[in-house]
């Protein structure tokens, strides 16, 4: 029954206001929305609010918390690992972008061009994503072993000297980037592949008729047509790689000599090994602010490209 069908002379009942009509019209939608809102409120917004509060407090969860101003921030900033952690995280993010952004895109283009064994190769590319991250990391621990690891054996076959991989300050971080790229490239490749398959073939045919070669076709057709997904993936990857944790935690313990300590790894140390949850929260808040900047860019880019 609609409001229009309600008899005008139903006693002294007032006409429903516009607001009420809007609520009635959308009551089911609001019902569904409530579930999501409650989940977000409990599991995302509330923890974030608590994180902000805790980063300005000192608490032992027994006595009432004390407000300590910026003391927790001073604690983490004065930590000798604070600088290396941010530098390592930034370098990791940059390297992970170079490898983890370019390689899946190129792989997707190659897979898109293939006419045979397409499904098999997609499966092979996606396989690492299906492995639990801890398993992948431990697999690479064996690959990287300087004495009997797969990589040094492979180098030995072509008469190249073995590397120290995780044991050297100069190669440890890039070793983590390789692990991260291997673990995550499957998802990126599939997303790029899906985007590539939405490009009308007529555009390529037209480009070919205009005499465009492979690289010109990629530059003038593929990249503009997948621009939105490329930008979104770029920003999502920055947000994800800046939170690198499992690779240093399981493979290097932040070493050697702090060469792989990351911001999240340091946060974990404060929260769980040093018993200073408040300082861990302060570090988390710093990272959150940095990531919010990237998220703001992401939202801006999404909006500009969808208007």
């Amino acid at each position, binding site marked *: 029954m609609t409001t229009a069908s309600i008899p005008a002379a139903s006693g002294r009942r007032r006409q429903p206001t*516009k*607001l009420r009509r*809007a*609520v009635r019209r*959308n009551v089911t939608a*609001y019902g569904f*929305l*409530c579930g999501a*809102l*409650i989940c*977000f*409120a*409990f599991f995302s*917004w*509330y923890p974030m*609010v608590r994180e902000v509060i805790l980063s300005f407090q000192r*608490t*032992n*969860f*027994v*006595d*009432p*918390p004390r407000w300590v101003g910026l003391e927790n921030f*001073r*604690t983490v900033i*004065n930590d*000798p*690992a604070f600088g290396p952690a941010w530098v390592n995280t930034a370098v990791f993010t940059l390297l992970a972008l170079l490898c983890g952004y370019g390689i899946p895109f190129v792989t997707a283009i190659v897979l898109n061009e293939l006419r045979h064994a397409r499904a098999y190769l997609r499966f092979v590319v996606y396989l690492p994503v299906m492995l639990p991250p801890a398993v992948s990391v431990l697999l690479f621990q064996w690959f990287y*072993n*300087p*004495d*009997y690891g797969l990589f040094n054996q492979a180098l030995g076959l072509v008469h190249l000297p073995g590397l*120290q991989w*995780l*044991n*050297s*300050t100069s190669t440890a971080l890039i070793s983590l980037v390789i692990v991260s790229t291997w673990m995550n490239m499957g998802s990126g490749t599939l997303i790029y592949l899906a985007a590539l398959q939405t490009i009308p073939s007529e555009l390529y045919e037209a480009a070919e008729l205009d005499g465009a070669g492979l690289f010109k076709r990629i530059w003038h057709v593929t990249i503009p047509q997948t621009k939105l997904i490329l930008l979104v993936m770029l920003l999502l990857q920055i947000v994800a790689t800046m939170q690198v944790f499992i690779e240093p935690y399981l*493979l*290097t*313990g*932040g*070493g*050697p*000599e*702090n060469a792989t300590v990351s911001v999240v790894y340091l946060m974990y*140390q404060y*929260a*769980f*090994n*040093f*018993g200073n*949850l408040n300082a861990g929260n302060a570090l988390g808040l710093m990272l959150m602010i940095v990531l919010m900047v990237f998220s703001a860019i992401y939202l801006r880019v999404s909006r500009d490209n969808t208007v």
Partner: protein
Amino acid sequence: MKSHKLSILLVSGLAIAAAAACGTDNSGGSGDKASAAPEGAGPVSISVNCEPPKTNKAERATFEEDLAAFQQLNPTIKVAKVTDAFPCYDPRTFEPKLASGELETVFYVNFPNVGRLIESGQAADLTPYVNEIKTFQDYNSSIDLFKKDGKVYGLPTDGYGMGLVYNKEVFTKAGLDPSSPPKTWAEVQAAAKKIAGLGPGYVGYGEYSGNNVGGWHFTASVYGRGGSVITDDGKKAAFNTPEGKAVLENLHQMRWADNSMGSQLYIDWPALMKAMAGGKMGMMLGAPDVLISLRNDFGGKFENYAITAQPEAKALFNGGAGYMINPKATPEQIKAGLKWIEYKFLTPGKGQFDYARAKSADLTVGQPYPDLYRPDTPSGQAVDELRKANANIDLAQFAGWVEGSKGIPPKAEPGPYAQEIYKILDTPMSAVLTRKDANIDQLLADAESKVNSLLASKG
């Protein structure tokens, strides 16, 4: 547009409502969920943790037997909840459990975390009650770790000093005499070189270098050489000394000049244990419990391993674990919790010291720990006699450690910020094991400056 505003209103309202619903007040927590009845009004209810896991059937059965016997002996105490989460003390869950009221009344804690919990007020003051424990006065110095400013905050239930764990089979293969293990670091170095010479995969001596365990073993090594990590007043670093330098120089020499340490980095506790259990590693620094753990947890051949005294030891790093009481517990719960600790862990002939039962359950008996009581006390003598009478393992595997460690004073963790200090000390440890050109003087000076800054910031 109106609809949009309504959505925003609804979202904000729900978020605020949810946040308000979740808001916690830490000040008025009633402690763990087990309830405390007023004195004389009925049984007092407590909860305990660290029940052995289901996979460890024999120890779990003895635990449950002890629990039943304890409650029969103490009808006014009800153990309402028993948890078996492993590890017994998990820093990742400790504070969330404390905040949510889920922390057990009686909780396990290992030595490296004791000082921090006392410092942060996360353990109950037991001082008024501890003298009711019959064996309390017999404790050796391990109890000191649980004391601060004359107050007692917990009770050690397991304790041991460091030693040198070695693989007898590997020693024999390398032409070394397993009944005459190294007594000096020079002998360790020579033995490690011979073992590494056995071929690919053989490691003479293994050592940690990350995740704070590198710093932990540096500390144990410095203690052994007679040095300290921090000054007695806890205000300054004290490891940039000939002792600290000797530790790093020795490792650097073995790693790079002798090539007797392999190139694998052992960044956490299980990594080195796995390597030792693998049967191709000759020696590592460890406590007597390492032998049992190599067998029970890492599949090592127990009979192949032995432990001897830490070479040239002037002090032994004091490792172990104990129990503390939830700071939100009532006095009745504290008393009940202490009774459980006393029955299960501190009474000769009962609980963990019921060696006759352990022997019949095919658990190992004879290992020289827990080392809780002074040897000249009634408790110390009783435990020693029971242990010897029921021993079912080859005591010779521990004999070198027992004899060699006699009279060497124990030395505790370096204060409440031990983990932060260990993290800093990981750096020189990993440097000497990964860089041939490591500048040891510079590494020690850098670490010293960092530890000094850390301690200064803590006031």
